[in-house]
């Protein structure tokens, strides 16, 4: 009995979810997890091969998914992608902006002083994280506003709430994503429909391709000093599991959350609640 109630509340049966960066670690986990909850998944990735791999995983568990090669920084490209999604699935209900990332050359370190960070990688990180969310939002908002209903989830970061040492570009860009999430929530519901919702999830520390070089030693796989500091600063004393983002997304996407709007939800093992002492 409880299963039926929960299915009614959290199932995504029949919904079409588009995920940018769907070929990455967290994007891929969201794609697989949300397909298990019944959604049809459009896996968007700049590198088609990575998207294909996730689509194959989903098909193995009898889910429905299709890969789309799409560059979140190219508006025309995103417009083509949404047209293809609608052609294939007849609809799109949800956009999850998971494309993003950091690079060592936009990160201050012993080898690279803050004063010496070049403008180009700085700009690239601001672009992929902020504009790479902004542009897909523009394109999908066009469709959602015509339909008068839709849901956007931006994947922000703990770095947006608490700037992390060294990580200058990424922290600033994700902080812009938080602000934009609130702005867009108000803008879309004031001007188009109160049934378009916009929220964000701010993951704490999950091991991904982008932060692995900071948190674990390349050779031994052991935690770096920084990795150890993070665990010491995380009350739950572990890194997050990707499926813990999936369950948070399911809660946000549920009709039971229709009064949740313009929020940023930290999933961080208590990191942001802890002063560190």
């Amino acid at each position, binding site marked *: 009995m409880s299963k039926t109630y929960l299915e009614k509340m959290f199932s995504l049966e029949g919904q079409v979810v588009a995920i940018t960066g769907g070929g990455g670690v967290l994007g891929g986990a969201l794609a697989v997890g949300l397909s298990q909850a019944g959604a049809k998944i459009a896996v968007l990735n700049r590198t088609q091969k990575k998207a294909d791999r996730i689509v194959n995983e989903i098909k193995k568990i009898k889910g429905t998914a299709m890969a789309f090669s799409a560059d979140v920084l190219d508006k025309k490209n995103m417009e083509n992608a949404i047209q293809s999604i609608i052609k294939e699935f007849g609809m799109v209900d949800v956009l999850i902006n998971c494309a993003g990332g950091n690079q060592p050359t936009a990160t201050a370190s012993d080898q690279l002083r803050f004063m010496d960070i070049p403008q180009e990688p700085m700009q690239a990180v601001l672009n992929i994280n902020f504009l790479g969310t902004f542009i897909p939002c523009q394109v999908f908002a066009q469709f959602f506003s015509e339909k008068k209903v839709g849901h956007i989830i931006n994947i922000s970061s703990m770095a947006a709430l608490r700037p992390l040492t060294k990580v200058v570009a990424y922290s600033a860009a994700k902080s812009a994503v938080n602000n934009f999430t609130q702005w867009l929530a108000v803008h879309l519901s004031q001007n188009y429909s109160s049934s378009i919702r916009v929220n964000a999830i701010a993951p704490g520390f999950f091991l991904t391709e982008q932060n692995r070089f900071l948190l674990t030693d390349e050779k031994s796989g052991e935690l770096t000093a920084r990795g150890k500091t993070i665990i010491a600063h995380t009350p739950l004393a572990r890194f997050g599991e990707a499926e813990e983002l999936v369950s948070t997304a399911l809660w946000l996407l549920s009709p039971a959350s229709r009064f949740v709007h313009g929020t940023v939800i930290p999933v961080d*093992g208590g990191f942001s609640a802890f002063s560190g002492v």
Partner: protein
Amino acid sequence: MVDSQLLAESKTEPMGILDKFILSNKVAVVTGGNRGLGKAMARALGEAGAHVVIAGRSRNSLEETAEELRQHRIEVLALQVDVGKEEDLDRLVNRTLETFKRIDILVNNAGISYRQPAEKISLENWDHVYKINLRSVFLLSQKVGKFMIKQRSGKIVNVGSLLSEQAVPEAIADSTTKAGIKMLTQSLALEWAQYNIQVNAIGPGYFRTDMMEPLYQNPAQHSMVINRLSIKRWGKPEDLQGAIIFLASAASDYMTGQVLYIDGGWLAG
């Protein structure tokens, strides 16, 4: 190393992810579970499989709510409790443990609202709001927390408010206690993370409940809320049901010390 392929393969059953929300055989205590938001949350927890203890002051509404929940095949224990009285809180914990042997989920929902200009509020009223909205939450969390620490698991969900974050006129006692709930939530989260206890809060915005009915019926207040809210309606008690199941279940195991604002976009703009 986390790898998306491994992650994908670690999922066995197609519907596995929804299982994270199941509360079968969990025992949940909901203060103020007899009416309003508490009643809606008790119902949701029960529907998700939990046995539910509802604690409230009014015997009539306790019995009515218990009957209603039982009609949905939810196992219920209804206890008449004034959360302002320590002996009542002890009785609540003891009776729950006698009946169900454990407490997995505590929802500190009971609260009152007292709206008056700051210069007029009496010390007696100030103290009363503090006693119900903050002191009782600390006390009951401490009593239940001792048990959860032994059990090495537990979920505590406090009920804050958008007032935890933002002041509004003539609500100084409500706002101060609700801001206190946010810090109490963070502090307990921090101290009890090591015992596998997650402590979070829900921060409702303007909801139409018995307690808020006077504001809802006041034309100026009503339109102030509607005009400010981009979602253009007041919250309904059932709008909290998804959040309470999320925070009470394994679905939120990596979340602690947070307040989830369910406010129709109030704080966003």
